[in-house]
């Protein structure tokens, strides 16, 4: 059964069907059905993935253009399977989070389903052309989300009547707070990255001497000259660095997420951002192991900047979504640290962190979307005391924040722990700094929770209500459940990810940590 194609094309079918539907209720039903079906297939994929065997499974191959060497090649390995599951899950939850959108719900869902397809396409593709194809395809839906359904930040709304308000001079004025500015910034940053990545991919194609875009073939039979490998590594790294939100290419991210509607931020912060890391592992680690090994120390330094910069700036933000956005930037630093250390535990931890962060970010943006819908502002100074009015949301938010700042019991903790264990031997200074930075993470999350939920209730708020209906509670519950359940019992994911990480690390010199840690890992693997 071509399970990967089923996962990938069910949302497309749903989107096509939605074109012809007018009735709002049927629009919602079809969106739920399409994303739900895709999720069901993704869960099934996770369950039948043979983690003992590893490697690329469920491969599907269709030749798209023989003369150009392009094949529509899908395959799932230990890295891709959890991320596909995360994408499907966030897409499914996103449908419920956007249930109450008034304006053009149908087009919103079409966009969401296409965004989901593009994301899953990147995670499943094993052909360079299609990795790029799906990646570029994911950029424009985000533009539409922000430009059409997004929100302006408070600074913009305060500028009512100011003639410079409207989106005309964004090139010269960096202080814009409109959603159009956010949309353009995100799209142009990501497009610029895509263009650099395209150059890298085309050069891989031409220097490998094989005239194929097939990733596996290039790795096995390609002969990329040594001198080129360094350049190609940097081109692809820099091409995907913007979407991975590495400092200094991160600035599209907080402003983009703040302006985007909740479901879009969920998808983007949850799985699209992770695309950056994923493709760097998928392409750079896989094709240029020596160059990766040479240049990882630079990345290790950059990621610490990410962690501290993201954390400190998050602390200063007045807009809740900006806080979450910057925290996402900071978390990307942890993932890079795990990737930089290049050993089994740290890389497994990094990929597990990708999944964990997807859940956490999804949860936090879903919750902030709900709060925004009730209070119509995300401005922290003017919010407060929501805990009494929305106890369910408050609880979920606290759990989500706790998971995000690495409280044991949440998935992020496992990921962080593995990253620290794995990186300590290789980059002790960076690991120490990253561990200290956890304090900053606690600080800004607790500050946000306090500003949002505790303290005095501001009297200017309209009557707000909690998440009462099943539709509102369902996405939060799923994500909370995922975070807690797999935070306590992570082994199903860990063993899948390990099987995917091992072949990537094989050609690299081993930098495994002390044997004691190996025992922990082995115990995990033998868990039923």
């Amino acid at each position: 059964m071509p399970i990967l194609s089923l996962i990938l094309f069910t949302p497309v079918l749903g989107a096509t069907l939605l074109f012809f539907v007018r009735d709002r209720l049927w629009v919602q039903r079809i969106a739920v059905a399409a994303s739900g079906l895709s999720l069901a297939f993704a869960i099934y994929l996770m369950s039948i993935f043979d983690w003992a065997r590893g490697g690329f499974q469920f491969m599907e191959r269709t030749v798209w253009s023989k003369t150009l060497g392009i094949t529509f090649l899908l395959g799932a390995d230990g890295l891709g399977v959890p991320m596909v599951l995360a994408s499907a899950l966030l897409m499914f939850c996103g449908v419920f989070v956007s249930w109450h959108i008034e304006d053009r719900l149908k087009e919103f869902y079409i966009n969401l389903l296409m965004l989901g397809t593009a994301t899953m396409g990147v995670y499943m593709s094993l052909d360079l052309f299609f990795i790029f194809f799906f990646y570029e395809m994911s950029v424009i839906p985000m533009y539409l989300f922000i430009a059409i359904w997004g929100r302006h930040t408070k600074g913009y709304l305060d500028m009512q009547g100011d003639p410079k308000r409207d989106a005309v001079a964004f090139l010269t004025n960096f202080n814009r707070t409109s959603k159009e500015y956010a949309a353009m910034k995100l799209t142009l940053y990501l497009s610029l990255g895509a263009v650099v990545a395209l150059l890298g991919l085309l050069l891989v194609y031409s220097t490998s001497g094989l005239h194929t875009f097939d990733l596996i073939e290039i790795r096995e039979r390609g002969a990329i000259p040594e001198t080129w490998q360094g350049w190609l590594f940097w081109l692809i790294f820099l091409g995907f660095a913007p979407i991975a939100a590495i400092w200094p290419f991160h600035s599209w991210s907080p402003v983009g997420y703040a302006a985007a509607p909740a479901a879009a931020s969920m998808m983007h912060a949850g799985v699209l951002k992770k695309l950056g890391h994923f493709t760097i592992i998928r392409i750079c680690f896989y094709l240029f192991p020596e160059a990766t090994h040479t240049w990882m120390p630079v990345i290790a330094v950059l990621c610490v900047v990410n962690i501290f910069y993201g954390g400190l700036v998050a602390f200063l933000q007045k807009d809740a979504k900006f806080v979450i956005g910057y925290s996402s930037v900071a978390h990307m630093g942890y993932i890079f640290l795990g990737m930089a250390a290049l050993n089994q535990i740290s890389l497994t931890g990094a990929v597990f962190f990708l999944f964990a962060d997807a859940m956490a970010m999804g949860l936090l943006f879903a919750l902030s979307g709900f709060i925004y819908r009730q209070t119509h502002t995300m401005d922290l100074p003017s919010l407060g005391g929501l805990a009494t009015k929305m106890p369910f949301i408050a609880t979920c938010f606290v759990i989500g924040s706790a998971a995000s700042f690495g409280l044991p019991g949440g998935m992020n903790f496992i990921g962080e722990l593995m990253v620290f264990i794995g990186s300590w031997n290789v980059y002790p200074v960076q690991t120490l700094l990253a561990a200290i930075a956890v304090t900053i993470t606690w600080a800004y999350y607790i500050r946000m929770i306090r500003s949002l939920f505790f303290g005095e209730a501001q009297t200017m708020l309209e009557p707000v209500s909690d998440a009462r209906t099943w539709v509102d509670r369902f996405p939060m519950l799923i994500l909370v459940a995922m975070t807690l359940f797999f935070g306590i019992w992570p082994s199903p994911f860990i063993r899948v990810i390990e099987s995917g990480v091992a072949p990537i690390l094989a050609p690299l010199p081993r930098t495994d940590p002390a044997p004691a840690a190996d025992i922990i890992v082995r115990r995990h693997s033998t868990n039923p």
Partner: protein
Amino acid sequence: MQSLGQVFAHPQVGFPLLSLLVFLPMAGAILLAPLRNEVALRCCALTVAFIVFALSLLLPIFFQSGTSDMQFVEQVRWIPPIGASYHIGIDGISLWLVCLTTFLSFLVVLHAFYGVRKHVRAYLMTLLVLETTLLGVFIALDMLLFFLFWEVMLLPMYFLIKIWGGEKRDTAALKFVLYTLLGSVLMLVGLIVLYLNHREITLAQPFASSLSSGASFDYLDWLKTPFPMQTQIGVFLLLFFGFAFKVPMFPFHTWLPDAHVEAPTAGSVLLAGVLLKMGTYGFLRFSLPLLPLASELFAPWMLALAVASILYGALLALAQDDMKKLIAYSSISHLGFVILGIFSFNTKGLEGSLIQMVNHGISTSGLFFVVGFLYDRRHTRLIREYGGLSSRLPILATLYLLISLSSMALPGTNGFIGEFLILSGAALHDWRYAAIAMIGVFLGAAYLLWLFQRTMMGPLSHASNALLSDLHVGEIGVLGALLIMVFWVGLFPAPFLSRMEASTGFVAARMVSPATTRSVVEAAPAAP
């Protein structure tokens, strides 16, 4: 020396299809002459255009892929004393350009139902005569015939701009004609030099050629002739002017923005959609195969000019405040890509540039139609007069967005196929040009999205915008037809690419085996 075979129309399709295609529009124009009733005029013209389009669809159906021979050939002696014959035929290079011409002409005549009010009869007659001349250029295999159609095409275009154009139409029309005329006069000199050289070389050869006097304007005969280096260099420069003025390449582009701004919608569509392609077609069909040594010599300069066009066009597009001028500069940028592809001399680049010619015809025509629809409503092309139109004109906004996405080469649209092929061809040839050209891709996304945003997104500005009506059926039909092609070529490019392969392979092969040409030239005695 490679030679091209010919497949005559009679065995291939049973009747002189190409002659019918070329002269039917002219016959239709003559038929329109006695009519007075506007409805009858429009219907009659539409029928003619539709029949021509339907006939042209026979071409790809009966086309034989896998051979670079000229097909549907018809040859009749015309002026034997100087060796000019009525010799027409198409191959993989001209096939899709012919279909593009008939398709766009059909759409333009359809547009005339609501797009033109005064002098309807003259307008329709001009359009049909223009169609004849455009088709003639692409199918002529006799150089004199080619030049005839090339020159005659200027006249209907001049009238189109002069009579139905905007305010400064007189200057624009004159500028267009004089510029292009200068170029074509130089081209004529080049053709005559080649003709004389061909006669000299043929007479000097021990074996007789088909036309015993040695005089021939026939392209296929010229292909067999190894022109000496001196001749090649001189003629390349002369032909360069003819073609470069048409493309238009930087720095010979200054007539284009004016011409586009002042031309009526149909004029811009045919100008951008077909006329500009004649220049690039000229390079591909004549400069490269006939003058391979000179082409190789001048390639670095041509690539540099191509990249200059790309960047210059894109940067200037960013600075425009007139919509049509912006799209005109974007044309300059896009056709710079086509030249980049052509002078990469490999199959990828050539195929990419060919398909991009067709794609640019579709996308830019769509953009000009959209601008035309906006102008019909507000009678202004200034960007600042519009804003937030998507709330009033959602259908226009959606179709406009899709066309923009095609122009900025989003994966899934036709533009991506062409751009990807051109960039891979350029990267295979010399990665530095590809790297700089990539910036053009990014800038393309920037100015197109920004234009869309300024006109369609954000709050509705200007009271007069609130009174506008959305697209009606005729307008939707035109854009819809273009969008069908956008997605067809974008998702299933194989049928289009497969028919081009053999012919572009032939041109590419000619470029890599000038050794054959060289040895013959070196062996020949030095020219007196």
